């Protein structure tokens, strides 16, 4: 299974290998799904939750915050401006739907929450492979009763979803500022824990915090490598123990362009102008401004991108340790876990709220083994809420010890 939107057209796709292996085995059937991630202002969560429940999908919600830059004139008419970051609480909704319904669902969500208005949030969809008890179901009657507008003019493709995992507390603000200054997107931040390095170090591990800050960025694919290098430089991610960064492809998305809050000097804001040009040019390729080759030359060999695969596991807290150990046995390390709250269809109760989402960036050459071991150890045949997602990650920058 290749990822249609990878601009480099890689021949080897680890997820395709996994697909082939599992189909041959015939024990676990992978499903081709669209994984939708929607980041909305916390005040809109209730509305969206009700809609998604009626839609009959399993949704996982995680708390987060978005960072925007607030620019104010200096007091007492002094020259210049003051700029600082403003945090806004958001909820990150993650759901999987059949691929054929993904566009319609995305349109419904955009219309319901007003995501076409800057400042409301971001939504994007990724095509991936899912292992679960049942293929994702959807209440088609309910979906067909919705008549959303078609937002094809503003939905972008050829995007990349970049995830930066940072080990130093409060370093997410610095990286978010870099992203905002580069005009990439509105970064959203979540918290997670990662213990791989710590677990190998004995009691000296207390000097390294298990808590990680995860900065999520969605950006045009053609600039992603250059921007990643800039982020690595600013976040010192080329040093051991500072964190790592990887990207996964996005099939379509609508980005929040409200990067700055402040005084507007002209009839249209820069974000409105950019959005209008994106529409005219039917994409974001016109925005390319960084020379990838130069960046690569400067970086040298120390942080070459690795061909990886992102494997996400969602399970109950009690089982997640066992699943992670299964991954460790075959050499998959560096899982980042975060807490998510599930909402299941119209089911009002019976589902534990202590679900854990564990994301691992795995080298391509061991992806097949890892998924195999995970499936053996998992309970996805029994539990409706357990999922394993496999998605190619063509560029991962991980400093190994």
């Amino acid at each position: 299974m290749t990822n249609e939107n990878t601009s480099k057209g890689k021949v080897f796709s680890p997820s395709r290998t996994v697909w082939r292996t599992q189909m041959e085995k015939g024990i676990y059937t992978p499903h081709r799904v669209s994984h939708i991630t929607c980041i909305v202002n916390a005040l809109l969560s209730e509305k969206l939750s009700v809609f998604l429940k009626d839609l009959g999908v399993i949704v996982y919600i995680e708390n987060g915050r978005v960072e925007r830059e607030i620019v104010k004139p200096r007091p007492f008419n002094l020259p210049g401006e003051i700029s600082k970051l403003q945090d806004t609480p958001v909820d990150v909704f993650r759901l999987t739907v059949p691929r054929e319904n993904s566009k319609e669902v995305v349109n419904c969500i955009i219309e319901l929450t007003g995501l076409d208005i800057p400042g409301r949030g971001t939504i994007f969809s990724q095509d991936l492979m899912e292992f679960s008890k049942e293929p994702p179901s959807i209440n088609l009657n309910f979906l067909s009763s919705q008549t959303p507008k078609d937002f094809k003019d503003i939905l972008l493709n050829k995007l990349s979803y970049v995830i930066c995992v940072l080990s130093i507390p409060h370093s997410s603000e610095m990286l978010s500022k870099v992203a905002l200054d580069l005009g990439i997107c509105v970064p959203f931040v979540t918290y997670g824990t990662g213990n791989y390095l710590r677990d190998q170090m004995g009691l000296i591990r207390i000097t390294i915090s298990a808590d990680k800050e995860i900065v999520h960025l969605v950006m045009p694919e053609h600039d992603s490598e250059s921007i990643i290098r800039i982020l690595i430089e600013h976040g010192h991610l080329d040093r051991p123990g500072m964190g790592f960064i990887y990207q996964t492809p996005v099939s379509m998305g609508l980005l929040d362009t409200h990067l700055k809050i402040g005084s507007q000097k002209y009839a249209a804001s820069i974000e409105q102008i950019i959005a209008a040009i994106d529409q005219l040019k039917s994409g974001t390729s016109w925005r390319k401004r960084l020379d990838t080759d130069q960046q690569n030359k400067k970086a040298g060999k120390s942080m070459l991108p690795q061909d990886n695969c992102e494997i996400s596991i969602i399970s109950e807290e009690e089982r997640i340790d066992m699943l992670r150990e299964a991954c460790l046995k075959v050499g998959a390390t560096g899982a980042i876990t975060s807490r998510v709250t599930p909402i299941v269809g119209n089911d009002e109760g019976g589902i534990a709220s202590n679900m854990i989402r564990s994301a691992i960036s795995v080298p391509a050459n061991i992806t097949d083994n890892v998924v195999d071991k995970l499936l053996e150890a998992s309970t996805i045949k029994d539990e409706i809420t357990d999922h394993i997602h496999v998605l190619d990650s063509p560029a991962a920058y991980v400093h190994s010890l």
Partner: protein
Amino acid sequence: MLKRIKVPFRDATMMLSEYAWTRIFDQIKSVAFIIIYLIVFQTLILRVPLANALATAGGIALVVFGLAFFLEGLVLGLMPLGERVGVKLPTRVGIAIIAIFGLILGFGATLAEPAISALRTAGSTVTAWDSPLLFMLLDQYTELLVLSVGIGVGIAVSLGMFRFYFNLRIKPFILTIIPILLVLTVWFSLDKTLSALIGLAWDCGAVTTGAVTVPLVLALGIGVSRAASKGKGTSSGFGVVLLASAFPVLAVLILGLILNSKSPDATTEKEFFSPAGREKALVLFGTEEKLRQHAFTHGSEEGRRAFYDDEETYTNTLLSIQDDENLRSSLLGTLTLQSWIVNNASDSERGLLSGVELKEDKISSAPFGKTIKEEGIAGARAVIPLSLLLLLVLLAFLREKLRYKDEVALGIFFTLIGMTLLTSGIKLGLASLGGEVGAQLPRAFASEEKYIDRIVIHNFDKALLYNTIDHTGTQKTYFNLAEDEKIKPVEFLESRYDETDRVYEHIITQAPLFGSQLTVLGIILVLLFAFGMGYGATLAEPALNALGMTVESITVGTIKRKQIIQVVSVGVGIGILLGISRILFDIPLVWLIVPSYVLLIPLTIISDDEFSAIAWDSGGVTTGPVTVPLVLAMGLSIGGALNISDGFGVLALASAYPIITVLLFGLIAQAKQRRSLTTQNTEEND
């Protein structure tokens, strides 16, 4: 099995040094304000040099290290342990067992961290004739008081677990319990005997939930909340601390109601100590010796004369105080004769004792080793039983393994070390510094000179006298007094010279800080000082730090730890300012407490659920080991100067106002969040 990374010694040393330095530096920043504030106030405004500067500096260093160890211990050991128990309990047992566990934990935590000792210090100025029920509760029924507070906290923790298990909202609890407390408080205020209990009851609520219990209960609550709630679960474990502050108030008020029938009525001092009132007085004291001691340590000359009812016995007793050591300890208890003369004796009693030369009382300051030992035992009592209880439940009852055993063990050890160093440092350094400043504060608003000490000069030679004249032509007579290798001119007053024995009594007094005309300025200064001290002390509170870390984690950094700490500190400052003004102007506590909590009710109704729980919990976590000694020292000093016997209520107000400030902060944050939903253009035009 993971391969073990061998970290070279040099790298490990660097990692450890950086780790230790960041934590110590954080604590230096948190205590810096209060230390500098107290020193500047003492030396520059009150113009009194620091006594025992070296000991104070040592104590402050202990506070910094203690805070660093304590907080790190919480993060490594107690909080993960509490959270693990909280997560596992609902998966294995039903709500009944969880509730019983909560009851045992809350009750045990109160006995382990008895903040009642702090309240006994606050109650040391309570007079038996003015507030007999209050005195009886603090003196005779202390154990019952601690038990009732413990039961209150136990029920609160139990109820908190119940709330998380069934995912009940916090607002119905607040809107039920608080009005009940307010109604009871108003009812108590209508009865002269019962009204004295109001301050104690509300202060009990403020001081329970100590530095160890709060983070533990928070972590436990988060764990239970995550594991137990079905469907749309909440990740918030807040709300238990609020209950653990409210239920002790109710428990103490109920205890007061029960014991009210046993207590004699309030009466005048003279009636209380007179033979006619002896029978009723002995209900409170048991023996005449204890009653007599109360007359000397708490009463005035009127009370003492009433006790003896015979001038000769009274005079002889006074004159025998110096020479009869047994009599002295029987009459004065732990007070020295010197301090009794300065603080308790009337002018005529001082006059009686003027011919008596005082032998130097040996006042020994608490030795360093003894303090460390005592605080170590108290710290062990606070930390070890709670940790053992959690470990027992986790390992034996729930049969769960601890993932990072060595980290948890290290964390508990750090908490123990930290608690010992922190409380020792507070006793040796911070509290003594606060006490010095507190003792000088009444000068700010005094309009008359205050008697400080006297020196009896024998073989006084009038030939040493010399005359001076001022610009108005007034002549005065002086002599030079050599003291500590310095020569000081002292005004000679004929009334103090005994011609027969050639003895001169030099009375040392302290002038008001701003002169007799500027008491209003002095009062403003005291109130501003109270605000600053409350603000600064709260910045250093470890339980508040733990709450702040939890809030930042739960809200994914939307609300920063520092923001919460600042907002709460401002609230505490306002609360302490009002508490001190209550003492200064003798305002009944009910006039301050009831309106504060009445204001909180509509604020709570319009606030977000999660924020309401955070706000009400923040009221419970203030008034900890850093704030309480400082506030008490200040309150006792001011109360003593004004002869106000009831020093309670300051801590209760210091707990109420942070709730207001945090709720207001939450409302502003909510409003900002709503504004961020509007389109770009609507919020920008200046």
